[in-house]
Protein backbone atom coordinates (compact mmCIF):
# COMPACT_ATOMS: atom_id res chain seq x y z
CA UNK A 1 0.00 0.00 0.00
CA UNK A 2 2.81 2.39 0.84
CA UNK A 3 4.23 1.60 -2.57
CA UNK A 4 0.98 2.53 -4.27
CA UNK A 5 0.75 5.77 -2.33
CA UNK A 6 4.33 6.65 -3.18
CA UNK A 7 3.97 5.84 -6.87
CA UNK A 8 0.71 7.69 -7.22
CA UNK A 9 2.11 10.80 -5.58
CA UNK A 10 5.04 10.57 -7.96
CA UNK A 11 2.82 10.23 -10.99
CA UNK A 12 0.63 13.04 -9.78
CA UNK A 13 3.71 15.16 -9.32
CA UNK A 14 4.65 14.51 -12.93
CA UNK A 15 1.19 15.42 -14.15
CA UNK A 16 1.30 18.57 -12.08
CA UNK A 17 3.94 19.83 -14.46
CA UNK A 18 1.53 19.86 -17.40
CA UNK A 19 0.50 23.52 -17.11
CA UNK A 20 4.15 24.47 -17.44
CA UNK A 21 4.35 23.02 -20.93
CA UNK A 22 0.88 23.11 -22.36
CA UNK A 23 -1.73 25.69 -23.19
CA UNK A 24 -5.19 26.08 -21.73
CA UNK A 25 -6.78 23.61 -24.14
CA UNK A 26 -4.70 20.70 -22.91
CA UNK A 27 -4.86 21.82 -19.30
CA UNK A 28 -8.65 21.81 -19.51
CA UNK A 29 -8.55 18.44 -21.20
CA UNK A 30 -6.49 17.23 -18.28
CA UNK A 31 -9.11 18.51 -15.85
CA UNK A 32 -11.84 16.75 -17.78
CA UNK A 33 -9.87 13.52 -17.74
CA UNK A 34 -9.55 13.72 -13.99
CA UNK A 35 -13.26 14.29 -13.47
CA UNK A 36 -13.91 11.30 -15.72
CA UNK A 37 -11.29 9.32 -13.80
CA UNK A 38 -12.92 9.84 -10.42
CA UNK A 39 -16.27 8.98 -11.96
CA UNK A 40 -14.87 5.82 -13.54
CA UNK A 41 -13.20 4.84 -10.25
CA UNK A 42 -16.56 5.16 -8.50
CA UNK A 43 -18.17 3.02 -11.18
CA UNK A 44 -15.42 0.45 -10.88
CA UNK A 45 -16.08 -0.06 -7.20
CA UNK A 46 -19.39 -1.52 -8.24
CA UNK A 47 -18.60 -3.15 -11.56
CA UNK A 48 -15.06 -4.36 -11.07
CA UNK A 49 -14.86 -5.04 -7.35
CA UNK A 50 -18.39 -5.83 -6.21
CA UNK A 51 -19.46 -7.47 -9.44
CA UNK A 52 -22.55 -5.29 -9.51
CA UNK A 53 -23.09 -3.73 -12.89
CA UNK A 54 -24.91 -0.48 -12.49
CA UNK A 55 -25.98 1.85 -15.25
CA UNK A 56 -27.06 4.56 -12.87
CA UNK A 57 -23.93 6.14 -11.41
CA UNK A 58 -24.68 9.36 -13.28
CA UNK A 59 -27.48 9.83 -10.77
CA UNK A 60 -24.95 10.58 -8.05
CA UNK A 61 -22.75 12.74 -10.22
CA UNK A 62 -25.66 14.85 -11.34
CA UNK A 63 -27.36 14.91 -7.96
CA UNK A 64 -24.32 16.26 -6.14
CA UNK A 65 -23.79 18.79 -8.92
CA UNK A 66 -27.38 20.01 -8.82
CA UNK A 67 -27.45 20.12 -5.05
CA UNK A 68 -24.29 22.21 -4.98
CA UNK A 69 -25.61 24.52 -7.68
CA UNK A 70 -28.95 24.98 -5.99
CA UNK A 71 -27.51 25.45 -2.50
CA UNK A 72 -25.05 28.09 -3.65
CA UNK A 73 -27.40 30.04 -5.91
CA UNK A 74 -30.87 29.64 -4.45
CA UNK A 75 -30.14 28.96 -0.81
CA UNK A 76 -27.27 31.38 -0.59
CA UNK A 77 -24.91 28.97 1.10
CA UNK A 78 -21.16 29.19 0.93
CA UNK A 79 -19.31 26.58 -1.05
CA UNK A 80 -17.96 24.77 1.98
CA UNK A 81 -21.35 24.03 3.51
CA UNK A 82 -22.90 23.48 0.09
CA UNK A 83 -20.31 20.84 -0.74
CA UNK A 84 -20.82 19.10 2.57
CA UNK A 85 -24.60 19.08 2.27
CA UNK A 86 -24.45 18.00 -1.36
CA UNK A 87 -22.33 14.99 -0.54
CA UNK A 88 -24.50 14.19 2.47
CA UNK A 89 -27.60 14.36 0.29
CA UNK A 90 -25.95 12.18 -2.33
CA UNK A 91 -25.00 9.58 0.27
CA UNK A 92 -28.55 9.49 1.60
CA UNK A 93 -30.00 9.01 -1.87
CA UNK A 94 -27.37 6.35 -2.59
CA UNK A 95 -28.43 4.51 0.56
CA UNK A 96 -32.04 4.68 -0.56
CA UNK A 97 -31.34 3.64 -4.15
CA UNK A 98 -29.18 0.82 -2.84
CA UNK A 99 -32.01 -0.49 -0.68
CA UNK A 100 -34.23 -0.69 -3.73
CA UNK A 101 -31.74 -1.89 -6.31
CA UNK A 102 -30.26 -4.62 -4.11
CA UNK A 103 -33.61 -6.36 -3.92
CA UNK A 104 -32.45 -7.86 -7.21
CA UNK A 105 -29.10 -8.90 -8.58
CA UNK A 106 -27.46 -9.19 -11.95
CA UNK A 107 -29.61 -7.83 -14.74
CA UNK A 108 -32.47 -6.90 -12.43
CA UNK A 109 -30.09 -4.76 -10.42
CA UNK A 110 -28.87 -3.15 -13.61
CA UNK A 111 -32.39 -2.35 -14.78
CA UNK A 112 -33.38 -0.87 -11.44
CA UNK A 113 -30.30 1.34 -11.24
CA UNK A 114 -31.02 2.51 -14.77
CA UNK A 115 -34.67 3.20 -14.00
CA UNK A 116 -33.78 5.10 -10.82
CA UNK A 117 -31.21 7.30 -12.51
CA UNK A 118 -33.57 7.98 -15.40
CA UNK A 119 -36.13 9.11 -12.89
CA UNK A 120 -33.70 11.68 -11.49
CA UNK A 121 -32.96 12.74 -15.05
CA UNK A 122 -36.63 13.20 -15.79
CA UNK A 123 -37.02 15.10 -12.55
CA UNK A 124 -34.22 17.47 -13.53
CA UNK A 125 -35.95 18.13 -16.83
CA UNK A 126 -39.43 18.65 -15.49
CA UNK A 127 -39.02 20.34 -12.14
CA UNK A 128 -38.21 23.56 -13.87
CA UNK A 129 -38.87 25.76 -10.89
CA UNK A 130 -36.00 24.11 -9.04
CA UNK A 131 -33.61 22.95 -11.73
CA UNK A 132 -34.39 25.33 -14.59
CA UNK A 133 -35.09 22.30 -16.74
CA UNK A 134 -33.54 22.12 -20.16
CA UNK A 135 -31.84 25.49 -19.75
CA UNK A 136 -29.71 24.17 -16.96
CA UNK A 137 -28.31 26.26 -14.16
CA UNK A 138 -25.74 28.73 -15.35
CA UNK A 139 -23.27 31.23 -14.00
CA UNK A 140 -22.21 29.09 -11.12
CA UNK A 141 -19.06 29.84 -9.25
CA UNK A 142 -16.07 27.83 -8.21
CA UNK A 143 -15.18 27.50 -4.56
CA UNK A 144 -12.08 29.01 -3.02
CA UNK A 145 -10.49 26.20 -1.05
CA UNK A 146 -8.38 27.68 1.72
CA UNK A 147 -9.00 31.08 0.18
CA UNK A 148 -7.20 30.19 -3.04
CA UNK A 149 -8.97 30.92 -6.27
CA UNK A 150 -9.31 28.04 -8.74
CA UNK A 151 -10.78 30.07 -11.55
CA UNK A 152 -7.88 29.79 -13.92
CA UNK A 153 -7.41 26.66 -15.97
CA UNK A 154 -4.12 25.79 -14.29
CA UNK A 155 -5.28 26.39 -10.74
CA UNK A 156 -8.39 24.27 -11.28
CA UNK A 157 -6.25 21.57 -12.86
CA UNK A 158 -4.08 21.35 -9.75
CA UNK A 159 -7.14 21.32 -7.53
CA UNK A 160 -8.64 18.46 -9.55
CA UNK A 161 -5.32 16.67 -9.52
CA UNK A 162 -5.15 16.76 -5.73
CA UNK A 163 -8.74 15.56 -5.42
CA UNK A 164 -8.11 12.75 -7.90
CA UNK A 165 -4.94 11.71 -6.10
CA UNK A 166 -6.72 11.61 -2.75
CA UNK A 167 -9.65 9.68 -4.20
CA UNK A 168 -7.33 7.17 -5.84
CA UNK A 169 -5.46 6.54 -2.61
CA UNK A 170 -8.60 6.28 -0.50
CA UNK A 171 -10.20 3.89 -2.97
CA UNK A 172 -7.01 1.86 -3.09
CA UNK A 173 -7.04 1.58 0.70
CA UNK A 174 -10.68 0.51 0.62
CA UNK A 175 -10.10 -2.10 -2.04
CA UNK A 176 -7.12 -3.60 -0.28
CA UNK A 177 -8.67 -3.61 3.16
CA UNK A 178 -10.17 -6.65 4.85
CA UNK A 179 -13.57 -5.31 3.84
CA UNK A 180 -12.32 -5.00 0.28
CA UNK A 181 -11.39 -8.69 0.36
CA UNK A 182 -14.95 -9.50 1.33
CA UNK A 183 -16.26 -7.32 -1.50
CA UNK A 184 -14.33 -9.19 -4.17
CA UNK A 185 -15.35 -12.42 -2.49
CA UNK A 186 -19.01 -11.60 -2.98
CA UNK A 187 -18.26 -10.84 -6.61
CA UNK A 188 -16.76 -14.26 -7.23
CA UNK A 189 -18.82 -16.62 -5.07
CA UNK A 190 -21.64 -14.89 -3.28
CA UNK A 191 -23.32 -18.09 -2.11
CA UNK A 192 -20.11 -19.40 -0.61
CA UNK A 193 -19.52 -16.07 1.10
CA UNK A 194 -22.93 -16.29 2.78
CA UNK A 195 -22.20 -19.82 3.93
CA UNK A 196 -18.86 -18.68 5.35
CA UNK A 197 -20.58 -16.08 7.46
CA UNK A 198 -20.43 -12.87 5.43
CA UNK A 199 -23.49 -10.65 5.26
CA UNK A 200 -23.44 -10.34 1.51
CA UNK A 201 -26.28 -7.82 1.30
CA UNK A 202 -24.67 -5.49 3.81
CA UNK A 203 -21.32 -5.71 2.04
CA UNK A 204 -22.98 -4.77 -1.23
CA UNK A 205 -25.02 -1.98 0.28
CA UNK A 206 -22.00 -0.36 1.92
CA UNK A 207 -20.05 -0.59 -1.33
CA UNK A 208 -22.98 0.91 -3.22
CA UNK A 209 -23.08 3.87 -0.86
CA UNK A 210 -19.32 4.32 -1.08
CA UNK A 211 -19.53 4.29 -4.88
CA UNK A 212 -22.31 6.86 -4.66
CA UNK A 213 -20.08 9.00 -2.46
CA UNK A 214 -17.30 9.07 -5.02
CA UNK A 215 -19.80 9.64 -7.81
CA UNK A 216 -20.88 12.68 -5.86
CA UNK A 217 -17.30 13.89 -5.53
CA UNK A 218 -16.94 13.57 -9.29
CA UNK A 219 -20.15 15.55 -9.57
CA UNK A 220 -18.77 18.39 -7.48
CA UNK A 221 -15.63 18.51 -9.60
CA UNK A 222 -17.85 18.47 -12.66
CA UNK A 223 -20.02 21.40 -11.61
CA UNK A 224 -17.06 23.43 -10.39
CA UNK A 225 -15.25 22.87 -13.68
CA UNK A 226 -18.16 23.67 -15.97
CA UNK A 227 -19.75 26.33 -13.78
CA UNK A 228 -22.94 25.06 -15.33
CA UNK A 229 -25.19 22.04 -14.84
CA UNK A 230 -27.69 20.50 -17.21
CA UNK A 231 -29.90 17.40 -17.05
CA UNK A 232 -27.58 15.59 -19.45
CA UNK A 233 -25.23 15.09 -16.52
CA UNK A 234 -27.82 12.67 -15.17
CA UNK A 235 -28.43 10.95 -18.48
CA UNK A 236 -27.71 7.41 -19.45
CA UNK A 237 -25.09 8.77 -21.85
CA UNK A 238 -23.07 10.01 -18.89
CA UNK A 239 -23.36 6.62 -17.20
CA UNK A 240 -22.46 4.94 -20.47
CA UNK A 241 -19.30 7.03 -20.82
CA UNK A 242 -18.36 6.12 -17.28
CA UNK A 243 -18.85 2.42 -17.70
CA UNK A 244 -17.10 2.51 -21.03
CA UNK A 245 -14.07 3.99 -19.33
CA UNK A 246 -14.13 1.11 -16.86
CA UNK A 247 -14.47 -1.71 -19.33
CA UNK A 248 -12.14 -0.11 -21.87
CA UNK A 249 -9.38 0.29 -19.35
CA UNK A 250 -10.03 -3.02 -17.64
CA UNK A 251 -12.31 -3.44 -14.67
CA UNK A 252 -11.17 -4.93 -11.42
CA UNK A 253 -7.93 -3.00 -11.43
CA UNK A 254 -7.15 0.33 -9.84
CA UNK A 255 -5.47 1.98 -12.75
CA UNK A 256 -7.54 0.55 -15.60
CA UNK A 257 -10.51 2.88 -15.15
CA UNK A 258 -8.25 5.91 -15.12
CA UNK A 259 -6.69 4.93 -18.40
CA UNK A 260 -10.08 4.08 -19.85
CA UNK A 261 -11.50 7.39 -18.68
CA UNK A 262 -8.61 9.23 -20.29
CA UNK A 263 -9.19 7.41 -23.57
CA UNK A 264 -12.91 8.12 -23.58
CA UNK A 265 -12.31 11.79 -22.79
CA UNK A 266 -9.72 12.11 -25.54
CA UNK A 267 -12.04 10.43 -27.98
CA UNK A 268 -14.97 12.60 -27.00
CA UNK A 269 -13.00 15.82 -27.37
CA UNK A 270 -11.46 14.74 -30.63
CA UNK A 271 -14.77 13.72 -32.12
CA UNK A 272 -16.56 16.85 -30.91
CA UNK A 273 -14.14 19.05 -32.76
CA UNK A 274 -14.83 17.28 -36.06
CA UNK A 275 -18.30 15.81 -35.92
CA UNK A 276 -21.43 16.09 -33.92
CA UNK A 277 -21.94 12.35 -33.83
CA UNK A 278 -20.49 11.56 -30.41
CA UNK A 279 -23.45 9.41 -29.39
CA UNK A 280 -23.14 7.24 -32.45
CA UNK A 281 -19.42 6.86 -32.01
CA UNK A 282 -19.95 5.99 -28.35
CA UNK A 283 -22.30 3.25 -29.47
CA UNK A 284 -19.80 1.87 -31.95
CA UNK A 285 -16.99 1.95 -29.45
CA UNK A 286 -19.18 0.02 -27.04
CA UNK A 287 -19.82 -2.59 -29.72
CA UNK A 288 -16.17 -2.95 -30.58
CA UNK A 289 -14.92 -3.12 -27.03
CA UNK A 290 -17.54 -5.58 -25.87
CA UNK A 291 -17.28 -7.88 -28.88
CA UNK A 292 -13.57 -7.71 -29.59
CA UNK A 293 -11.92 -6.75 -26.32
CA UNK A 294 -14.27 -7.49 -23.46
CA UNK A 295 -11.59 -7.48 -20.81
CA UNK A 296 -10.38 -4.06 -21.72
CA UNK A 297 -7.87 -2.58 -24.04
CA UNK A 298 -4.71 -3.75 -22.40
CA UNK A 299 -5.59 -7.46 -22.24
CA UNK A 300 -7.33 -7.13 -25.59
CA UNK A 301 -4.23 -5.79 -27.26
CA UNK A 302 -2.20 -8.63 -25.81
CA UNK A 303 -4.64 -11.08 -27.28
CA UNK A 304 -4.63 -9.44 -30.69
CA UNK A 305 -0.88 -9.54 -30.61
CA UNK A 306 -0.93 -13.24 -29.81
CA UNK A 307 -3.43 -13.90 -32.60
CA UNK A 308 -1.32 -11.97 -35.09
CA UNK A 309 1.74 -13.96 -34.13
CA UNK A 310 -0.20 -17.22 -34.48
CA UNK A 311 -1.19 -16.24 -38.04
CA UNK A 312 2.41 -15.96 -39.08
Amino acid at each position, binding site marked *: MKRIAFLSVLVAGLFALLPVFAGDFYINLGSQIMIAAVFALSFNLLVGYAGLTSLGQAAFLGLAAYLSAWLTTRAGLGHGSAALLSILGTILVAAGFGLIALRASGLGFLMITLALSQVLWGLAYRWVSVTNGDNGMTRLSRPQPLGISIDSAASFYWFALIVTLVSFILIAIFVRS*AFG*DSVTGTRDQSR*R*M*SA*LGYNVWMIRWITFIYAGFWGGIAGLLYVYYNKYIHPTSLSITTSAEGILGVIAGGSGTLVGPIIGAALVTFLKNYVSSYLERWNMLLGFVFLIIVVVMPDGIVPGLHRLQAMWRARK
Partner: protein
Amino acid sequence: MNASNVYALETIGLCKQFGGLPATQDVSIKVRPGERRLLLGPNGAGKTTIFNLITGDRPPDSGRIRLFGEDVTNLPTHQRAHRGMSRTYQIITLFPHDTLEHNVTLGLLALRSSRWNIFRPTSKDIHDEARRVLSLVGLEHLADRPIAEIAYGEKRRVEIAMALAQKPKLLLLDEPLAGLSSAERKSIKSLVASIPRETTILMIEHDMDTALDLAESITLLHYGKIIVEGTRQEVISDQRAREVYLGH
Protein backbone atom coordinates in the same frame (compact mmCIF):
# COMPACT_ATOMS: atom_id res chain seq x y z
CA MET B 1 -33.18 -28.33 28.96
CA ASN B 2 -30.41 -30.53 30.25
CA ALA B 3 -27.16 -29.86 28.37
CA SER B 4 -26.59 -33.52 27.68
CA ASN B 5 -29.96 -33.70 25.92
CA VAL B 6 -29.18 -31.04 23.42
CA TYR B 7 -28.75 -32.32 19.91
CA ALA B 8 -26.11 -30.79 17.68
CA LEU B 9 -28.69 -30.67 14.93
CA GLU B 10 -32.37 -31.33 15.11
CA THR B 11 -34.79 -30.99 12.23
CA ILE B 12 -38.48 -31.34 12.92
CA GLY B 13 -40.85 -32.17 10.12
CA LEU B 14 -38.99 -30.40 7.33
CA CYS B 15 -40.98 -30.14 4.13
CA LYS B 16 -40.06 -28.53 0.83
CA GLN B 17 -41.81 -28.54 -2.50
CA PHE B 18 -40.49 -27.33 -5.81
CA GLY B 19 -43.23 -26.37 -8.21
CA GLY B 20 -45.56 -29.06 -6.97
CA LEU B 21 -42.91 -31.75 -6.63
CA PRO B 22 -42.14 -32.74 -3.05
CA ALA B 23 -38.39 -32.68 -2.60
CA THR B 24 -38.39 -33.09 1.14
CA GLN B 25 -41.19 -34.81 3.00
CA ASP B 26 -41.51 -34.55 6.76
CA VAL B 27 -37.82 -35.09 7.49
CA SER B 28 -37.00 -35.27 11.18
CA ILE B 29 -33.38 -35.93 12.05
CA LYS B 30 -31.60 -35.84 15.39
CA VAL B 31 -27.81 -35.71 15.35
CA ARG B 32 -25.95 -35.97 18.66
CA PRO B 33 -22.88 -33.82 19.36
CA GLY B 34 -19.72 -35.47 18.04
CA GLU B 35 -21.65 -37.95 15.91
CA ARG B 36 -20.64 -38.90 12.40
CA ARG B 37 -23.93 -39.16 10.50
CA LEU B 38 -24.30 -40.14 6.89
CA LEU B 39 -27.21 -39.03 4.73
CA LEU B 40 -27.46 -41.77 2.17
CA GLY B 41 -29.72 -42.24 -0.78
CA PRO B 42 -29.76 -42.59 -4.54
CA ASN B 43 -29.55 -39.55 -6.77
CA GLY B 44 -32.61 -37.39 -6.51
CA ALA B 45 -33.37 -38.57 -2.99
CA GLY B 46 -33.36 -34.97 -1.80
CA LYS B 47 -30.14 -35.01 0.21
CA THR B 48 -28.71 -31.73 -1.06
CA THR B 49 -32.12 -30.09 -0.62
CA ILE B 50 -32.05 -30.99 3.05
CA PHE B 51 -28.58 -29.52 3.30
CA ASN B 52 -29.82 -26.35 1.66
CA LEU B 53 -32.66 -26.16 4.15
CA ILE B 54 -30.29 -26.71 7.06
CA THR B 55 -27.85 -24.04 5.90
CA GLY B 56 -30.60 -21.60 5.06
CA ASP B 57 -29.99 -21.45 1.33
CA ARG B 58 -33.66 -22.16 0.93
CA PRO B 59 -36.53 -21.63 3.32
CA PRO B 60 -38.54 -24.74 4.23
CA ASP B 61 -42.24 -24.80 3.47
CA SER B 62 -42.79 -26.07 6.99
CA GLY B 63 -40.79 -27.55 9.82
CA ARG B 64 -38.15 -26.32 12.21
CA ILE B 65 -34.39 -26.54 12.51
CA ARG B 66 -32.51 -26.45 15.79
CA LEU B 67 -28.79 -25.96 16.10
CA PHE B 68 -27.53 -26.96 19.54
CA GLY B 69 -30.94 -26.24 20.95
CA GLU B 70 -31.39 -22.87 19.28
CA ASP B 71 -34.15 -22.51 16.71
CA VAL B 72 -32.43 -21.22 13.58
CA THR B 73 -35.27 -21.77 11.12
CA ASN B 74 -35.63 -18.06 10.42
CA LEU B 75 -31.98 -17.17 10.74
CA PRO B 76 -30.19 -16.10 7.53
CA THR B 77 -27.38 -18.33 6.26
CA HIS B 78 -24.51 -16.11 7.30
CA GLN B 79 -25.70 -16.00 10.87
CA ARG B 80 -25.88 -19.77 11.02
CA ALA B 81 -22.20 -19.78 10.15
CA HIS B 82 -21.59 -17.60 13.16
CA ARG B 83 -23.45 -20.15 15.27
CA GLY B 84 -20.91 -22.78 14.25
CA MET B 85 -22.26 -24.25 11.02
CA SER B 86 -19.91 -24.87 8.10
CA ARG B 87 -20.46 -26.63 4.83
CA THR B 88 -18.73 -27.84 1.72
CA TYR B 89 -20.33 -28.08 -1.68
CA GLN B 90 -20.80 -30.86 -4.17
CA ILE B 91 -19.53 -28.59 -6.94
CA ILE B 92 -16.31 -26.83 -6.13
CA THR B 93 -17.17 -23.24 -5.24
CA LEU B 94 -13.78 -21.89 -4.39
CA PHE B 95 -12.37 -18.58 -5.58
CA PRO B 96 -10.57 -19.74 -8.72
CA HIS B 97 -8.28 -16.79 -9.41
CA ASP B 98 -7.14 -16.43 -5.82
CA THR B 99 -4.37 -18.36 -4.14
CA LEU B 100 -5.06 -21.25 -1.79
CA GLU B 101 -3.93 -19.09 1.06
CA HIS B 102 -6.34 -16.33 0.09
CA ASN B 103 -9.19 -18.81 -0.10
CA VAL B 104 -8.60 -20.10 3.40
CA THR B 105 -8.00 -16.54 4.63
CA LEU B 106 -11.48 -15.59 3.44
CA GLY B 107 -12.85 -18.49 5.41
CA LEU B 108 -11.04 -17.34 8.55
CA LEU B 109 -11.89 -13.67 8.07
CA ALA B 110 -15.59 -14.44 7.85
CA LEU B 111 -16.02 -14.93 11.56
CA ARG B 112 -13.80 -12.09 12.74
CA SER B 113 -15.02 -8.60 13.37
CA SER B 114 -12.06 -7.23 11.43
CA ARG B 115 -13.88 -8.20 8.26
CA TRP B 116 -15.66 -4.82 8.52
CA ASN B 117 -12.44 -2.83 8.58
CA ILE B 118 -12.37 -0.58 5.54
CA PHE B 119 -8.91 0.77 6.23
CA ARG B 120 -6.59 -2.02 7.24
CA PRO B 121 -5.80 -5.03 5.08
CA THR B 122 -6.51 -8.50 6.43
CA SER B 123 -4.05 -8.92 9.28
CA LYS B 124 -0.95 -11.00 9.01
CA ASP B 125 -1.96 -13.40 11.76
CA ILE B 126 -4.99 -14.46 9.71
CA HIS B 127 -2.73 -15.16 6.75
CA ASP B 128 -0.40 -17.16 9.00
CA GLU B 129 -3.30 -19.13 10.42
CA ALA B 130 -4.43 -19.88 6.86
CA ARG B 131 -1.04 -21.34 6.03
CA ARG B 132 -1.17 -23.41 9.20
CA VAL B 133 -4.56 -24.79 8.21
CA LEU B 134 -3.22 -25.63 4.76
CA SER B 135 -0.30 -27.48 6.29
CA LEU B 136 -2.74 -29.55 8.37
CA VAL B 137 -4.19 -30.87 5.12
CA GLY B 138 -0.80 -31.19 3.53
CA LEU B 139 -1.21 -28.36 1.03
CA GLU B 140 1.13 -25.73 2.39
CA HIS B 141 3.50 -26.18 -0.52
CA LEU B 142 0.74 -24.94 -2.85
CA ALA B 143 -0.32 -22.01 -0.70
CA ASP B 144 0.65 -19.38 -3.23
CA ARG B 145 -0.83 -21.06 -6.28
CA PRO B 146 -4.20 -20.00 -7.68
CA ILE B 147 -6.98 -22.51 -7.17
CA ALA B 148 -7.47 -22.88 -10.91
CA GLU B 149 -4.03 -24.45 -11.23
CA ILE B 150 -4.28 -27.26 -8.71
CA ALA B 151 -5.67 -30.76 -9.13
CA TYR B 152 -9.30 -31.65 -8.44
CA GLY B 153 -8.45 -33.77 -5.43
CA GLU B 154 -6.42 -30.94 -3.97
CA LYS B 155 -9.34 -28.55 -4.49
CA ARG B 156 -11.55 -30.88 -2.47
CA ARG B 157 -9.00 -30.79 0.30
CA VAL B 158 -9.01 -26.98 0.20
CA GLU B 159 -12.81 -27.01 0.48
CA ILE B 160 -12.65 -29.10 3.59
CA ALA B 161 -9.74 -27.08 4.96
CA MET B 162 -11.72 -23.88 4.51
CA ALA B 163 -14.63 -25.33 6.43
CA LEU B 164 -12.41 -26.78 9.17
CA ALA B 165 -10.53 -23.49 9.53
CA GLN B 166 -13.64 -22.03 11.09
CA LYS B 167 -13.55 -24.71 13.82
CA PRO B 168 -17.20 -25.48 13.22
CA LYS B 169 -19.44 -27.18 15.73
CA LEU B 170 -21.46 -28.72 12.90
CA LEU B 171 -19.80 -29.60 9.62
CA LEU B 172 -21.91 -30.43 6.60
CA LEU B 173 -20.01 -32.31 3.89
CA ASP B 174 -21.79 -32.55 0.56
CA GLU B 175 -20.42 -35.53 -1.35
CA PRO B 176 -16.80 -34.93 -0.31
CA LEU B 177 -15.60 -37.97 -2.24
CA ALA B 178 -17.27 -37.18 -5.56
CA GLY B 179 -15.07 -37.40 -8.61
CA LEU B 180 -11.95 -38.53 -6.76
CA SER B 181 -9.52 -41.29 -7.59
CA SER B 182 -9.21 -44.11 -5.07
CA ALA B 183 -5.93 -42.71 -3.72
CA GLU B 184 -7.53 -39.29 -3.29
CA ARG B 185 -10.51 -40.88 -1.60
CA LYS B 186 -8.24 -42.54 0.92
CA SER B 187 -6.60 -39.24 1.76
CA ILE B 188 -9.93 -37.43 2.16
CA LYS B 189 -11.28 -40.26 4.28
CA SER B 190 -8.33 -40.12 6.63
CA LEU B 191 -8.69 -36.35 6.78
CA VAL B 192 -12.34 -36.60 7.76
CA ALA B 193 -11.55 -39.36 10.23
CA SER B 194 -9.03 -37.12 11.94
CA ILE B 195 -11.48 -34.32 12.63
CA PRO B 196 -11.85 -33.91 16.40
CA ARG B 197 -15.08 -34.82 18.18
CA GLU B 198 -15.79 -31.17 18.99
CA THR B 199 -17.05 -31.04 15.43
CA THR B 200 -20.22 -32.95 14.62
CA ILE B 201 -20.26 -34.22 11.05
CA LEU B 202 -23.25 -34.68 8.78
CA MET B 203 -22.24 -36.03 5.42
CA ILE B 204 -23.94 -36.75 2.11
CA GLU B 205 -22.88 -39.53 -0.15
CA HIS B 206 -24.79 -41.62 -2.64
CA ASP B 207 -22.22 -44.37 -3.07
CA MET B 208 -22.80 -46.86 -0.27
CA ASP B 209 -19.46 -48.63 -0.27
CA THR B 210 -17.09 -45.72 -0.06
CA ALA B 211 -18.95 -43.75 2.53
CA LEU B 212 -19.70 -46.47 5.05
CA ASP B 213 -16.27 -46.34 6.63
CA LEU B 214 -16.77 -42.78 7.76
CA ALA B 215 -20.21 -43.06 9.23
CA GLU B 216 -21.30 -44.29 12.61
CA SER B 217 -24.96 -43.90 11.88
CA ILE B 218 -26.90 -43.56 8.68
CA THR B 219 -30.10 -41.91 7.59
CA LEU B 220 -31.35 -43.41 4.36
CA LEU B 221 -33.48 -41.22 2.16
CA HIS B 222 -35.58 -41.93 -0.89
CA TYR B 223 -37.79 -39.44 -2.71
CA GLY B 224 -37.30 -36.96 0.09
CA LYS B 225 -38.51 -39.29 2.84
CA ILE B 226 -36.57 -41.08 5.54
CA ILE B 227 -36.74 -44.81 4.89
CA VAL B 228 -34.37 -46.25 7.47
CA GLU B 229 -32.25 -44.82 10.26
CA GLY B 230 -29.76 -46.45 12.54
CA THR B 231 -26.22 -47.68 12.97
CA ARG B 232 -24.19 -48.88 10.03
CA GLN B 233 -24.94 -52.48 10.77
CA GLU B 234 -28.64 -51.91 11.23
CA VAL B 235 -29.05 -50.06 7.96
CA ILE B 236 -26.92 -52.36 5.83
CA SER B 237 -28.82 -55.42 6.91
CA ASP B 238 -32.21 -53.74 6.54
CA GLN B 239 -34.42 -55.11 3.77
CA ARG B 240 -35.73 -51.67 2.84
CA ALA B 241 -32.22 -50.35 2.24
CA ARG B 242 -31.58 -53.09 -0.26
CA GLU B 243 -34.85 -52.31 -2.02
CA VAL B 244 -33.91 -48.69 -2.39
CA TYR B 245 -30.64 -49.55 -4.06
CA LEU B 246 -31.77 -52.55 -6.04
CA GLY B 247 -33.11 -50.54 -8.86
CA HIS B 248 -29.80 -48.76 -9.39
